[in-house]
């Protein structure tokens, strides 16, 4: 019953496969290591493409028969444990009977785009960094990440959610430590310890919620409580203000969860791990970090904090607005002052994730849907940005913006991708970023009126730093341009075909989602519409009559 579920396959499949491949890579004799490594790499890539096609088939309504826009609140697709209370009692999907952990998976309009995004980004990032050293281990780690990331997005049991949340840290830590830049030890440690500490506070919040989720004692259950999120959602809906024993506790838990998620997103002031981690990480690592890992924070915030504790969200609305606004404006202004290309892109991630907080704080269906779409759009554009940076590092051996001018002449493809990615990220219409930004801006105007001038002006600064860095690097420098010192007089080589292929796929999706955003926007707005009309409106009427 558990394993027939495609979501289980998407989660556990990559993890098991990664471990098998790592074992194979370790077990093969040293003389044949190179050769076997190539085969393993191909196998891993093929496997990830298989998973991508599986998730794409799930998406196509004509194939899977699922209508993504009519799922309904607190209903999930491919749910393996539908009526949780009954099913747990019957012993169907329990994992650890003793203290109420179950293997409960399911997706809806919020999590499925993230699952699909993950399955897309894994093969793309593998392709972009095809020739990494010790390729078998490198790509196995990426595959392991895929399993852990998907696990975060599909699990509906808080214990399992937390497990996968922390599990994602491990492959990323090793990716940065073993394949990273010069300062990788510091960056890897900082990344791990910082986000781990924040997650521990989140764990505290989770444990409080667990404590209050009583279930009728089922066979083997000692504590009489469960971690199941659907049970918590049901009791939150029923109990309203006495959920978790009172509004005070709800606020405290909300803040604890907020710390964990804000550090992951990252939101100012918990963001300083990101620039170091990004600058030192290998290209594929950065792509996954920016593309999916950051979205885990936003997803968790919506799924757990917002869905289960809407009254606390209403109470703390201004806190979320301030966090989002500060991230947006501060991130953009700090970007303007960076000279390292990758650091600049890292801060721009901070800035864009601030918009997500703003979208959620508007508490409008359009705003929340815009925030979710921003997760998807940024998840496609940001890896493109980092792939370009990686190509720069690879072919020009430097990431200093000031060290080169006029590279359009030497690397036309790289320049073209830089322009595409840079323009997509600053929110050029016809690309995905614009759709998300405009949705959030409109919702912000509806909720906060003239205050929208602040995020709108920040868009100008966003454009400024992107255009400035792009102009300097690609265009200036007269007829010949200026090549950086780090090349030592050699001629630069334009990007390799796999870097190119990966980047073209990302660019293609950015444009596709910019022109036809409804592909994913419909299910997101169905989700947010249901949430606002069924849950938030009641809470708002209670709290502010």
């Amino acid at each position, binding site marked *: 019953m558990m394993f027939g579920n495609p979501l289980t396959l998407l989660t556990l499949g990559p993890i098991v496969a990664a471990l098998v491949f790592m074992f194979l890579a370790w077990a093969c004799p040293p003389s044949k290591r190179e050769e076997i490594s190539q085969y393993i790499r191909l196998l891993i890539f093929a496997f990830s493409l298989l998973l991508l096609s599986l998730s794409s088939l799930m998406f196509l309504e004509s194939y899977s028969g699922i209508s993504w826009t009519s799922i309904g609140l607190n209903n999930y697709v491919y749910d393996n444990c539908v009526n949780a209370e009954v099913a747990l009692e019957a012993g169907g999907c329990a994992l650890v009977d003793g203290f109420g952990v179950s293997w409960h998976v399911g997706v809806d309009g919020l999590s499925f785009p993230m699952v699909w995004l993950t399955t897309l980004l894994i093969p793309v990032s593998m392709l972009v960094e095809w020739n990494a050293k010790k390729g078998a281990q490198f790509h196995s780690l990426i595959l392991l990440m895929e399993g852990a990331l998907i696990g975060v997005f599909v699990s509906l049991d808080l214990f399992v959610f937390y497990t996968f949340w922390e599990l994602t840290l491990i492959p990323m830590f090793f990716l940065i430590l073993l394949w990273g830049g010069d300062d990788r030890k510091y960056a890897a440690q*900082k990344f791990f310890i*910082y986000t781990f500490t924040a997650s521990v506070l989140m764990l505290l919040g989770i444990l409080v919620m667990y404590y209050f989720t009583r279930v009728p004692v089922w066979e083997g259950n000692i504590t009489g409580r469960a971690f199941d999120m659907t049970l918590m959602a049901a009791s939150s809906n029923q109990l309203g203000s006495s959920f978790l024993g009172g509004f005070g506790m709800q606020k405290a838990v909300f803040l604890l969860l907020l710390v964990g998620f804000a550090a992951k997103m990252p939101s*100012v*002031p918990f*963001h*300083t*791990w990101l620039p170091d981690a990004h600058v030192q990480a290998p290209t594929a690592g950065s792509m996954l970090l920016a593309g999916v890992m950051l979205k885990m924070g936003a997803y968790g915030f919506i799924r757990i904090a917002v869905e289960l504790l809407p009254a606390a969200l209403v109470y703390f609305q201004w806190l979320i607005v301030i966090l989002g606004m500060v991230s947006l404006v*501060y991130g953009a*202004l*700090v970007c*303007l*002052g*960076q000279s390292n290309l990758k650091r600049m892109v890292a801060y721009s991630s901070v800035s864009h994730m601030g918009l997500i907080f703003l979208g959620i704080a508007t508490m409008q269906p359009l705003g929340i849907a815009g925030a979710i779409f921003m997760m998807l759009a940024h998840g496609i554009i940001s890896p493109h940005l980092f792939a370009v940076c990686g190509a720069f590092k690879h072919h020009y051996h430097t990431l200093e913006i000031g060290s080169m001018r006029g590279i359009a002449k030497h690397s036309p493809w790289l320049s073209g991708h830089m322009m595409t990615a840079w323009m997509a990220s600053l929110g050029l219409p016809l690309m995905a970023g614009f759709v998300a930004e405009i949705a959030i801006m409109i919702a912000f105007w509806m909720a906060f009126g003239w205050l929208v001038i602040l995020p709108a002006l920040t868009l100008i*600064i966003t454009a*400024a730093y992107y255009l400035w860095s792009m102009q300097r690097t690609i265009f200036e420098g007269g007829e010949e341009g200026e090549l950086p010192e780090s090349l030592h007089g050699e001629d630069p080589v334009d990007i390799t075909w796999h870097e190119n292929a990966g980047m073209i796929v990302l660019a293609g999706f950015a444009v596709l989602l910019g022109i036809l955003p409804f592909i994913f926007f419909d299910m997101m707005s169905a989700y947010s519409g249901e949430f606002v009309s069924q849950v938030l409106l009641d809470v708002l009427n209670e709290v502010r009559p």
Partner: protein
Amino acid sequence: MSQLAYIFTGLGVALWFYNHGEHHAAVIAFGASMFHLFNHAMAKGMLFMASGSVIHEMHHAHHHLAHGDDGDHDDFDPQDMRNMGGLAGKMPITATAMAIGSASIIGLPLIGGFWSKEGIVAETWNAAALHGGTVLLVPAFLILLTAGMTGFYMTRMWLMTFAGKPKTEFADHVEEQTPWIPTPLVTLSVISLLGGFTLAVLGATNWLGEAEALGTLVHEHGIVLAILETLVHAFLPTDAFLFMVTWITIAISLIVGPAMAMRIHGGKLKDGDKAPQLIAWIPLLSAKFGRANVDELANSGLADALHRRLYFDEVYEWAISKTVIPISQAFTWFDTHVIDGAIKGIEYGSQKISRDVRKVTTGSASDYILVAVIGMFSILVLLWGVI
């Protein structure tokens, strides 16, 4: 940009009318603005095309004559009108197209832009004088002033480029070469010439409010009467005030402005050059106004300021460099030293505490026994009451 300002003035007047309950007038003003948008698009598009043609041929001529020199790195600017002159004979199609386009923009009666421009001017003065919108007197006067300036600058442009004697040898050497440029020029000329009038007869200024009204005039009264009606409506409006406004505008934009330009920049073509019939009279006319010497004015501070676009760009740059850049630098410093500083402080602090606390483990057995004994006594003391 100046014509777009006309469009916006029309839109503003439309809104003013709407806010004051004059819905019918609002529709007319709005319609006139949109109509002007169309006319301007046609005429401006053609003017840019024609300018491109001129610049292209100037560039060609420069290459041709200067190819023996040190390549084309000298300071010759093919776009500079001061290098042109007398091109009417050499580039007949371009010159004609440019003349028609300019006429449309200036608002020559019966041609293209006239209908929409008159519409906007009339409605603005209507609002300002006849409907109590005294606040609108400022834009009303401004658009009259602009009409005059438009007449001046368009005529100046045409005369500097196409009339008079060639000012450089390159201008003398130009000839219309590419086969592709004339087609769009001719097409757009025809549209500019006739399009405005046709749409006006069809009632273009009213159709935005009542789409069914388009063409009612022609339908009801037949085409001849419709044309007459339109002409009468434009040139002989019943209201005396509007009659005055119409003819003053025509006078300013058609006579005053161009005459001033002709005085400064006019001149017959070089002997032996012949311009096409349609426009041949323009250089001849322009020569009759005498010559005014404006060298002093041309080198004045005002001319410099106008050339530097009233220093708007400099002001913007100054504002940004004094606000955004310093804030950005401050925030960058803050991020590295304060926020990350706090994290580094925690790192440093925890390591320091660890180093200090580690010193308790001295490795000496007697120290450990001492600590164990102290600990045992402390426990005894603490539990004294309980045991």
